[in-house]
């Protein structure tokens, strides 16, 4: 059995990440977080919105993922995300601005649909802020 997992994260825009890692944890749509170690049983599931972390050379690294699918095998994890970013792709100012905008939208929301869109936007911005270690993200 191999001692590492090949983690691949691809989005329709670009391949985001690909490397051998020791451990992965990612959010699923319906069952909370999945932690994957080498030798995991094959699983396929829908990915939720949130933070993915992987451990590489003893260091913990984060990626954001938004929706999509995960395919897990004994020696690989493939995430087909709708959107995903590494830390250096996140623009803190933009995320903060989008959080403010989402909060404003949420206050002004009239219909159920408005509330849901605003909520989703707020979530996305909070996830990005949390990933970047911004204090506003920790209220999430």
């Amino acid at each position, binding site marked *: 059995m191999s001692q590492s997992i090949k983690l*691949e994260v*691809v*989005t*329709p*825009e*670009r*391949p985001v990440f690909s490397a051998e890692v020791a451990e992965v944890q990612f959010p*699923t*749509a*319906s*069952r909370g977080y999945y932690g994957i170690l080498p030798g995991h*049983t*094959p*699983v*396929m*599931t*829908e990915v939720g919105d949130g933070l993915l972390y992987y451990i590489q050379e003893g260091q913990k690294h984060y990626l954001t993922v938004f929706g*999509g*699918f995960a*395919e*897990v*095998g004994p020696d690989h994890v*493939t995430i*087909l995300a*709708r959107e995903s970013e590494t830390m250096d792709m996140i623009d803190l100012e933009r995320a903060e601005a989008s959080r403010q905008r989402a909060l404003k939208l949420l206050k002004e929301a009239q219909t159920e649909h408005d509330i849901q869109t605003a909520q989703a936007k707020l979530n996305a911005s909070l996830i990005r802020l949390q990933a970047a270690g911004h204090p506003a993200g920790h209220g999430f």
Partner: protein
Amino acid sequence: MAGLQDIRRRIRSVKNTQQVTKAMKMISAVKLRKSQERLVALRPYASKLMEVVRRVVGRIKGDAEIQPGPIAQSFLSPREEQNIRLVLVASDKGLCGGFNANVLKAATAFAAECPAKIAHLDVVGKRAAEWARKHKLTAAGEYLNIPLTGLQRVVTEISASAAAQYQAGEIDALYIIYNYFNSPMSQTPTVFRVFPMDLDRRSEGRHATEVSHLLEPDPNSVLETLLPRFVETELLRNLLESSASEHGARMAAMDKASNNAGEMIAKLTLTMNKIRQASITNQIIEIVSGANA
């Protein structure tokens, strides 16, 4: 024979045209690179997604206990095609060689041969819209002047409404006609059925590597979220192919035009020099014969 002045004027005008075609060629080259980059970036995603879909479908087909839900049914099992939805992808602008002509010819042939009724037509690009008008077809969806970044939205709209129409029984299949991108120099007009999809044909000889995955929370819900995504990705891929093809075709056309302009300038310059020489010779003869007389 045209006078010296006229030829000079023509050379100047051809030179101007050449500058325009050269500039257009450069612009197309840049745009081609952008489209191609997106296409190349999408490919790993599309092929992985295809693999995953194939595995899940294989699992569900192999297991008699699992009954595919309504959405899964709609994407997988073909009905008799009576009403179809067609997406026709051409470009907004001309000056790209046979790009539009070829794809529109394919569309005309498809419309003539296809036994089913085209219940819903979407056109992407002005040239496609003009084609629809010429053939007295009403386009229910017109997508004009879409930038590269706007393609995703178009795709989401089309696939969501097409899926709803399929379930309501209004359409039995979704087809797309576009230019397949072979290389910057060559494009092939292609008719492609997006769904119901034909997984068996594409998956030949790949069953050996099948591992049975746990599908969580359950096979059906995985498949039902997976399939619309797959349709979207395929549509997006086709639109990107078309966009890359367009810029490739324009680049090739403009390259040819620039070369032709170059040739023309060379020819005109030669004629101009001949005329100039002839007039000089004439003048000398006149002087010499005048001196002799």
